[in-house]
């Protein structure tokens, strides 16, 4: 991590503060939190969804259910990638019909993951609305998609890579930018 090409943009405290703010924004814009559910995109979006759920419980005293979505089967880039992604389970133990969904992911980049997630969710039922919460928005969208809740906007170049590490998944907690990465694949 001491590499000069690597820069820490959020540390553990920053991440916590940022998610607390997003939780407040969700509460503010979804008065009463009725019918609200959090859906995380595997893998780190799921950890973010769980954290937001805990924070909403603390702030508003309401428990918001959490589901996990694997978007592999909905990807549009099977012909582009070299190694085949391993499929993980989609675990959404409640109906999505009529729900207000907050879709959670770690980094928003081209928007293709979110497109796949939207298709995946709609196949599971017809929600009332879908909002998007991301920890980092790094720009370079290839589809007309925008986030409703953004932890931090970072302007990046295509050859940079953003890496999010969360304790649940990685045992460390920070967000870094790596320069000079081959193609910036997220």
């Amino acid at each position, binding site marked *: 991590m001491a590499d000069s090409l690597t820069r820490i943009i959020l540390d553990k405290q920053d991440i916590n503060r940022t998610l607390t703010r997003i939780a407040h924004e969700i509460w503010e814009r979804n008065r009463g939190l009725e019918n609200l559910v959090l859906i995380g995109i595997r893998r780190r979006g799921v950890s973010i969804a769980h954290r937001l759920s805990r924070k909403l419980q603390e702030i508003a005293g309401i428990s918001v259910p959490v589901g996990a979505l694997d978007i592999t*089967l*909905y990807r549009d880039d099977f012909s582009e990638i070299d190694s085949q992604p*391993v*499929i993980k389970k989609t675990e959404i133990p409640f109906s999505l019909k009529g729900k207000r969904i907050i879709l959670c992911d770690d980094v928003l980049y081209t928007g293709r993951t979110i497109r796949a997630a939207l*298709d995946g969710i709609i*196949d599971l*039922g017809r929600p009332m609305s879908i909002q998007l919460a991301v920890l980092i928005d790094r720009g370079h969208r290839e589809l007309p998609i925008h986030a409703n809740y953004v932890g931090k906007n970072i302007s990046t170049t295509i050859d940079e890579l953003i890496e999010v590490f969360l304790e649940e998944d990685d045992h460390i907690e920070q967000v870094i930018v790596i320069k000079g990465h081959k193609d910036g694949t997220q």
Partner: protein
Amino acid sequence: MELSNKDLLAIRDLSPEEILLILDTAESMKEISTRDIKKVPTLRGKTVINLFYEPSTRTRTSFEIAGKRLSADVVNISTSTSSTTKGETLKDTGRNLQAMNPDLIVIRHSCAGAPKILADTLPASIINAGDGAHEHPTQALLDAFTIREKKKTLSGIKVAIIGDITHSRVARSNIFLLQKMGADIRVSGPHTMVPPFIEELGVSFMPDMEEAIHDVDVIMMLRIQLERQQHGLFPSIREYSRFFGLNLEKLKKAKSDVLIMHPGPINRGVEIAPEVADGPYSIILDQVTSGVAVRMALLYLLIGKGNRESN
């Protein structure tokens, strides 16, 4: 991690890691079949051909449903209505099908090695859905998936396979697979239906069925191929049933949490009593449900990405 071969011809070709990859992928696929909309777009634009030279209900339907749930286009060919009746050879049929650019061909054939001939001739992926008395790899994978689902592991599990071992491709594939995953296997059946030197596969032979089943976690019954009775391999169906049929009486000797499996189609009252097949220990229909998930996993793993050659 992905499968190293373009085809699935035999369990013998798979490594334990590949088997685990298939079973884990199938676990994720299973949920799709429980949805209201049982379809995902993953294999959109891919073509799968079911080429069955032998009758089949379960396997053919299972592959067809698996393909359709992943949005592939599935074409069924049953050879009784095809040019095979006009004398076309397997290779020629294969080449002609290949000319229509399928991505994968599922083949069942009465000759061992037929899938291998297609795999060597054609660029399409080939899945062996049963070839003669050789192998039936997808059956063994779905059996392993079902056992793992119920018992949480395959390693150390004791399995008894009962019936016509010699002529059973299901038995062979299951022996190879379960052994690779660390299970402990014994077989039982009439001497005329168990190959000599079976112990060399690391399997024990117990001629007494009650001894074979008394301490196992899983009893796998095989279909007795009634058409073989003419060959004099056993004196009468009634006698076979008395010694090697699973009924409530024999079941009392087994463990209280034993699982009973059968690849189907079952001969009620011959190798398995109706009360046992429909009873609480039977997971015969779970096997069928697993079959769709396992075949979805295989289709995804074999043709779910771009051109293998170009990468």
